[in-house]
């Protein structure tokens, strides 16, 4: 019964979404108050209906209702309850349902926290988000219905969840990522509504900023989690593979990064308006493009979901409607947007502009690298593959100008400045940079040019960020946005240091080893003590135990190899001893003849810094959202427009940051 209720809720919600896209938009254009007033009730109803649908599917999973095809295909009664629940988004149909549910959540958020905005403006924004929802709801209902039954013959037990996904990292990775992807729909809807309404003022930018920042924070958290998961679960010790699906999540992230910077300029200086609108459209468009690439099976990837041309065609038509529509609107209306602000060649505006140019260049490289194999093949030039070596090479050159601009930026004044004024400040970072680089060179044997340069520049950046914080907080307390920005930049420095050092200084050794024997990697002696058999809830496993020591530091590690009977799949669980300065990483390979095993032992210095960087960026975005300046400005607007909604707005900001800070707590637990 419940699956039918869920299905029915989906259908009603589809009808509501159509109404939401049509009536409030007409109402806003033709000044029909009744139509405008429809927007918020429709949004809340949609959120309630989709919550019911999502609950019904979760219920079916929790109670092992294998008469539902999707449950039978992706769950199993042996599965622990938390994996049964996370299995809801473990495959195509359910993850789409999660997608639309999250969209309805963001839409409801916008409806709830926008009391101080013009009703007509809000109606336009909500209508655009309703339009976005139509396509995805239709996609779920007509091509990927998760509530389909297997009647009359239903299986006794399910096929089990893909073992790769049976992991804590994967329980929260997709929801985070989707919160980010879908969160960009808010900025998108604001931009499109502004183009339709012809209002593109500072208010628009100010309103978009916290929403964009929270979406960006979620996306950063999602990508970081994904990378961390790949590191310990796939058993290769890698953390980023430039896989097409990773690129699909990376592209909206780059666009989002550019967007949060250009929004700052638009809000504070009234410049870059048309450019900001384009970025807001791009960030969400790239999220959609990512969805298309992942779901259509158009690219070969370890992540590939269902490959089904009809599904792909459906998303493509949807892309044409949403992205094509928005970009046409942009071409038609954006020349009405005039940035009147003037600035000189050496000013913060120009530096932020260079930041944007560099980010967009990176975006285009990743986009081309991801799509070029496809284009190349389709125009008959044969197959090529573009992989990690290409991206590594490009990004190792790209980061040099990026860090330089990033370090200088915060010191430079808006509108106009002189280089001589900041020259001496920039020198502050040089001493620590040289000391750190020398230390790295001497102790970690980092001797390649780009890695050393990476360490030097990142240290310089970090030193300047800290110096800037100290000098500017001397006179008066800094706003939270300033702290947030500095944290984000420190995060980027940590990321670069992590990558630069790990890439060069990691040592791994693959050996054939039997219990009782030992192997030495970089002063660490790995003693293989024993292998045990182990029976998990839905898998059987070998546990290989190691005692690891480098004289002063002794600990034991357990590497695991699991066999999942339902999927006849073998999974590796690496044994990791984590530390801020180095990770010790063991992965268990094949069992060789007799008692011997193939084992790979790794020493990976500074690898944690990569995720530490991500974590700092997420924290930075939370601090920015928490800043009371958004509330203050809003309160000021409220007085002006005399709308009694101050408490709502406060609650809004608090709630957003509450969600975000929960994320961080979640993350912190993971990292320890």
């Amino acid at each position, binding site marked *: 019964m419940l699956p039918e209720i869920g299905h029915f809720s989906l259908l009603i919600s589809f009808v509501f979404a159509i109404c939401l896209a049509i009536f409030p938009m007409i109402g806003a254009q033709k000044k029909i108050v009744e139509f405008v007033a429809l927007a918020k009730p429709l949004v809340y109803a949609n959120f309630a209906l989709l919550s019911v649908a999502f609950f019904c599917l979760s219920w079916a999973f929790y109670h092992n209702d294998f008469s539902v095809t999707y449950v039978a295909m992706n769950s199993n009664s042996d599965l622990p309850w938390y994996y049964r629940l996370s299995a809801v988004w473990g495959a195509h149909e359910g993850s789409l349902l999660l997608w639309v549910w999250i969209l309805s959540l963001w839409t409801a958020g916008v409806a709830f926290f926008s009391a101080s905005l013009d009703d007509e403006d809000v109606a336009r924004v909500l209508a655009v988000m309703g339009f976005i929802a139509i396509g995805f709801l239709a996609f779920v209902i007509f091509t990927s219905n998760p509530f389909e039954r297997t009647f009359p013959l239903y299986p006794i037990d399910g096929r089990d969840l893909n073992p790769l996904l049976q992991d804590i990292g994967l329980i929260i990775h997709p929801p985070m990522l989707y919160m980010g992807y879908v969160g960009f729909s808010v900025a998108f809807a604001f931009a499109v509504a502004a183009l339709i309404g012809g209002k593109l003022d500072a208010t628009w930018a100010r309103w978009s900023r916290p929403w964009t920042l929270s979406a960006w924070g979620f996306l950063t958290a999602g990508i970081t989690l994904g990378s961390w998961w790949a590191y310990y679960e796939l058993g290769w010790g890698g953390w980023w593979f430039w896989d097409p699906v990773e690129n699909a999540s990376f592209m909206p992230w780059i666009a989002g990064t550019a967007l949060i910077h250009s929004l700052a300029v638009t809000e504070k200086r009234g410049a870059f308006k048309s450019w900001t609108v384009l970025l807001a459209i791009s960030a969400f468009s790239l999220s959609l493009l990512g969805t298309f690439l992942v779901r259509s099976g158009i690219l070969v990837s370890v992540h590939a979901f269902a490959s089904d041309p009809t599904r792909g065609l459906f998303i*493509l038509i949807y892309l*044409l409607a949403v992205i094509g529509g928005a970009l046409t609107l942009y*071409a*038609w209306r954006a020349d009405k947007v005039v940035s009147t602000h003037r600035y000189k060649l050496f000013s913060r505006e120009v530096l932020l502009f260079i930041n944007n140019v560099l980010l967009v260049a990176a975006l285009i490289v990743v986009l081309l690298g991801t799509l070029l194999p496809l284009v190349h093949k389709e125009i008959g030039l044969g197959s090529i593959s573009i992989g990690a070596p290409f991206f590594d090479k490009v990004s190792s050159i790209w980061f040099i100008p990026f860090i330089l601009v990033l370090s200088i930026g915060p010191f430079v004044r808006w509108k106009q400045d002189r280089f001589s004024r900041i020259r001496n400040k920039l020198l502050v970072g040089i001493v620590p940079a040289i000391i750190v680089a020398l230390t790295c060179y001497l102790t970690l044997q980092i001797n390649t040019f780009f890695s050393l340069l990476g360490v030097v520049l990142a240290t310089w950046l970090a030193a300047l960020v800290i110096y800037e914080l100290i000098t500017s907080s001397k006179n008066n307390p800094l706003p939270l946005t300033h702290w947030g920005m500095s944290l984000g930049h420190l995060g980027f420095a940590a990321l670069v240091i992590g990558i630069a050092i790990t890439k060069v200084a990691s040592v791994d*050794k693959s050996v054939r080893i039997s219990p009782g024997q030992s192997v030495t990697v970089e002063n660490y002696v790995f003693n293989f003590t024993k292998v045990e058999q182990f029976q998990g809830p839905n898998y059987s496993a070998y546990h290989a135990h190691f005692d690891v020591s480098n004289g002063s530091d002794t600990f034991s590690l357990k590497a695991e190899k699991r066999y999942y009977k339902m999927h006849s799949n073998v999974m590796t669980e690496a044994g990791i001893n984590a530390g801020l300065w180095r990770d010790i990483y063991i992965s268990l390979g094949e069992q060789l003849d007799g008692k011997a095993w193939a084992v790979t032992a790794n020493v990976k210095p500074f690898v944690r810094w990569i995720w530490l960087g991500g974590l700092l960026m997420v924290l930075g975005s939370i601090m920015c959202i928490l800043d009371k300046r958004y509330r203050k400005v809003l309160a000021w607007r409220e007085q002006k427009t005399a709308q009694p909604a101050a408490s709502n707005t406060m609650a809004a900001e608090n709630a957003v940051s509450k969600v975000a800070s929960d994320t961080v707590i979640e993350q912190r637990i993971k990292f320890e």
Partner: protein
Amino acid sequence: MKNYKLLIPIVAFLLVSIFLYKGLYSDPTNIENANLAKPFPQFQLADLMDENKLYTKQDLLGEYTLINVWGTWCVTCRVELPFMTQLRQQGIKIVGVYYDNAAEAAFGELDVRNTRKDVTQMLAQLGNPFQFNIYDEKRDLSLDLGVTGAPESFLIDDKGTIIAHRRGAIDHRVWQNEFAPLFPSASGSQQSLEQN
């Protein structure tokens, strides 16, 4: 509309969409192979089981031959061994190119005797489809063939021209669709296989 620059994003997007549309209907796993319709590369390599026995391209000529690049380390190869053993029983000549994955790993001195032991054990267990195995120790032949992984299979005709190439395992369906029709006596091998 005075400002034509504003049209750039929509035009770029439409161009990309055309390729996305075309890409939907082509199989991504079927990567085109530059080797198709070209002669099989020349080589001189030892037998996997006996380093004194050398093979060259001449040993592959004279009849349609299926060349299978494989290794005991490769899980998918395990899967296709039983089916290929059936093929051998149909009278199809199959030659293995053994690709040693461990060559670069630091297993100390690479000992071919261990490999031989693994191979013998695995073939005894799952069936031996191979007339003989060429040991591609330095991976030169695999490089010339443009091999990207294992298993990969090449079908060459009696004159040594590559007429089919498959990345991934060969099963009954793949054989019927991609390989069997290429044989001069296609119907014969097909029927006997379906009886199995």
